[in-house]
Structure formats: C-alpha cells, structure tokens
C-alpha cells in the first residue's frame, strides 16, 4: 500500500500520512476537474452544434488552465453584511466534505486512502458535510438568492439521500459487506460477475436479479444526480432564477473551491455507482498484466478502468444536463417521495427475497 511505502521512505508516520492523503487531490481531483470542466464545455458545445472553447491552445485544451489562473488572480470579495466567519468556512467545509469521500474510494487494488469496513456508509455520512457547508454559504452570504438556493439544495440533498441509501442497503444485503474494497473484489474477473448482472455466483437467482439490479442502478443514478445538484435537478443553482444559487456571492479562490467540490462530487458519485454495480476498478475482460505476467501492470490497468468508468458516468451526467430541462420544486419532491422511494423499497424487498431463495 502507498501509505506503508511512504512510511518506509521517510520513516515518519505524519509525513507519510500527509503525502498519502494529498495524493488523490494532487494526482487525481485537480487534473480531473481541469479535464472535466473542459469536457463539459466541449460536450455542451457539440451537443448544440457549437464548438465550445477554441482559442486557448489547440481546440481550447488549455482553456481551464487559463480560467484557473484568472480565478487565482481575482479579488476575494467579502461584502459588508456577510457573516464573515461562516462565509469563510463554508467553501472549505464543502470541499472537505467531498474530498473526504475520496478516502474510502478504492482507486486500484493497491491504493485506497483508508480501507474502512463501513466504507460506503462512511461516504454517505461524510458527504452530509456538504449540506452543512451549502447552508452556511447561503446563510452567510446575506443574499436572498443565495439563501433560497441553499435551502432548496439542502431539501433536495436530504430527500434524495433516502433512495440512495435504500439502494445501497439493497446492495449491502445482497453482497453482505459495506467495505468498498471487498465489494469491488467480489466482482472480479469478467463483466458477467458485476453486480448489475446479478453478482459472481452462478445460479438461477443471478438471472432473476438482473432486472431488479437494473432498476436499483437507475434509482441510485438518478438520486445521486440530484445529490450533486446536476441538471435536471439543478434548482439550487438555477441560473435563470437564482443567479447561481448558494455561491452567488463568492469570488476568486473560494468560488473555485465550490467549483472543484462540485466536480469532485460528480466523480465521487460516479465512482460509487461503478463500485457498487460495475465492478469498481476491475477490468471487464481480464488483465493484460496477468497474461504477460507483469505484476505492476495490474494496478495501472485497474486505475485506467476505474477512471474510465468514472469518467463515463460523468459524461452521462453531462449528456443528461444538455438533454433535459430543469424540474420544478414540487416535481422534484414528487419524483423522490412518490416514485424513487417506494420503488426502492419494493426493490429492496424483492432482492431480499430472491437472495434468500
């Protein structure tokens, strides 16, 4: 594991822990956010028959780098009537909440921040910090639009957490573990063993489970989409009615923190969905490293597959964003309480019964 490696290298637990903790941020989240923002704009452009950014670098590939430099240089504006303390803590809290989730996400079989047994529940619990941060940001901004956005966001995240947890519960019941590492390890080898295809055990139950697993996947995908405030569930930052929701008053680096947290979140939920249903970091076709007998190649391949799956789901999120219009508040609540939650419950029961048989 990475942590032990650094521990041996520096002979100090603190330095090793520090490096191991900042590793996903530096080598993963920042580059991912840079690429994802560009991808989002390019996807948006091409879906509307436009080109997207074209000016900075070849076909605009350096656009986000330029944007970051611009954000770094910007003045950090704090309005007179803001609640200074909360205003300054909020972006840190939001980012910490979404970053902490990465601790329990297995990137490869060789790297996971903290291999905790309650992995999936830890993630759900710690992302709750984001709600607190968003509410703080909205309240401290002393701006009606920010507050409205924050309240909508809190209501939305809290109500969509229920279907998410119900589906997670279904999976936990089915696999018997809450450790994301074990969960991924269970779905090893070919894609036929993934949970969406009924898990690794070959029996009649496997085939019976497939439709219900697909339903479970759809539910968790929709509800995580709502949890990260993406269209069609983006009423918290509805540009056309609320300027941009809870981060209206922020500028410069603090705004960048919210932005980074949003994209980190997008990847985190995609990673969770792929770990739960699509084999996590496992390759769908077996490993080149096994065939060629090169051991170090396997984690690299796993990292590739993990990123690939994550980015694919992020792409689908963007795809949905440019397809669907925004939901109204009441429609949003209807979708969660009247449709997703009952279906998730029934699904939980059925999967439970099938697993028992």
């Amino acid at each position, binding site marked *: 594991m990475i942590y032990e490696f650094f521990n041996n290298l520096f002979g100090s637990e603190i330095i090793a822990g520090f490096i191991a903790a900042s590793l996903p941020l530096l080598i993963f989240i920042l580059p991912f956010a840079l690429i994802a923002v560009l991808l989002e704009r390019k996807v948006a*452009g091409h879906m509307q028959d*436009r080109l997207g950014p074209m000016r900075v670098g070849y076909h605009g590939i350096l656009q986000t780098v330029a944007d970051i430099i611009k954000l770094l240089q910007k003045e950090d504006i704090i309005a007179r009537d803001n609640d200074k303390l909360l205003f300054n803590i909020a972006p840190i809290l939001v980012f910490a909440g979404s970053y902490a989730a990465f601790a329990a996400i297995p990137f490869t079989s060789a790297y996971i921040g903290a291999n905790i047994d309650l992995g999936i529940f830890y993630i759900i619990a710690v992302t709750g910090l984001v709600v607190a941060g968003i509410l703080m940001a909205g309240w401290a901004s002393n701006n009606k639009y920010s507050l409205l956005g924050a309240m909508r966001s809190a209501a939305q995240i809290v109500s969509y957490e229920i279907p998410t947890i119900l589906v997670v519960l279904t999976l936990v019941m089915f696999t018997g573990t809450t450790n994301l590492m074990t969960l991924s390890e269970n779905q090893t080898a070919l894609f036929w063993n993934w949970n969406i295809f009924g898990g690794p055990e070959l029996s009649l139950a496997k085939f019976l489970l497939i439709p219900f697993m697909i339903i479970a996947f*759809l539910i968790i995908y929709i509800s995580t989409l709502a949890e990260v405030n993406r269209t069609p569930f983006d009423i918290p930052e509805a540009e056309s009615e609320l300027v941009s929701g809870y981060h209206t008053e922020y500028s410069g680096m603090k705004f960048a923190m919210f932005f980074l947290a949003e994209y980190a979140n997008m990847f985190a939920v995609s990673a969770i969905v792929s770990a739960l249903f699509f084999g996590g970091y496992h390759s769908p076709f077996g490993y080149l490293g096994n065939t060629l007998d090169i051991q170090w190649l396997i984690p690299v391949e796993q990292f590739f597959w993990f990123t690939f799956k994550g980015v694919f789901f992020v792409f689908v999120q963007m*795809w949905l964003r440019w397809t669907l219009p925004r939901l109204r508040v009441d429609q949003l609540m209807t979708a969660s309480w009247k*449709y997703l939650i009952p279906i998730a419950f029934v699904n939980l029961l059925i999967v439970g019964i099938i697993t028992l048989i």
Partner: protein
Amino acid sequence: MKEYFNNIFTALYTIFVGMKITFRHLFIPAVTIQYPDVKLKLPERERNRLYVNMDDCIGCDQCSRACPVSCIEIETVKSIPGEDLGKTSNGKKKVLWVTKFNIDFAKCCYCQLCVFPCPTECIYMTDVYEFSEYERENLIYDFVTLTPEEREQKKLNYEKFMAEKAAADAAAKQAPKEEPKKES
C-alpha cells in the same frame, strides 16, 4: 395505479428519446464560424464604412446636403488662376480645393443616401465593418489629402488673390473717375 406506472414509463422513455437526439447532435458538424479568423461573405449591396476618393472629389457639397443626419462636413476654397487641380476620372475639371472633408461615423446611419448624388462617384461604401474605437472623436474621419499647412496655404493664397483683385478693382474704378476730373 395504471397511471403511476404509465408515468414512470413515459418519463424513462422520453428521457431516452431526448438522449438519443442529443447524442446524434454530438456528431453533427458544428455550425460555428470562427469569426475573426473566418468571415462570412458579405452580401453584394452591404452598407458599411464610407470611403471618399479625394482624387475625384470636386467639392460640390451634394453628398453633404443629401445626408439626413448632417454628418459630412465640407469646406472648399476656390483655386486661383494658374493653379492646375487636374481632372476627375470622368473628365470633369476640378476648380475647388477641398480643405475640409470630415465624416462623423458616430453619427452616420449608413443609409447610403450620400452615395447617389455624387457626380463623380467618388464617395462609396466599402466592406470594412470593424472600426470600433475607444474615443468617439476617433470616429471622425478626415479624408482630405492635403496637409494642414497646404490647406492654410490654399486659403491664404485665395485671400491674397482676392485682396489683390479687390485692390486692382478699386484701382481700376478710381482711375476712370479721376481722369474726367482732370479734364474738366
């Protein structure tokens, strides 16, 4: 109950229809024109910034009078005998020095009304449409080809010529009057 499942089905179905459409558009070539690099071909009779070919301008002031917003300012000075101003391209003889020909493009409404009355067709529309400025004064274009000193010179020349002529006239008037006096 039936409606409930119907709703779910319609929701999912319509989402997939929409996604299919957007996915198809992902591969349709973009219609964007990369403006400063690529420019659309302008229509044949487009009206943009005016240009005045001063070699042909006879200073007749017709364009200025036709202009509905009075944004053309023309001042002319008569030439003195012996000065050759040349001819316009359609054979008219030029007799006036144009010492001021300002067009204020901040006022101009690009109606092209000044273009038609010009007898020598020397004021016309070009295809330049990118001439924004930070100062409004910079939009006043001076088309006169003479240098400021030359303009002054022409004015002085004319005044001097007129003064000389007036003096000569006065002298000519006085001379015949005085002669009969002497005789009588």
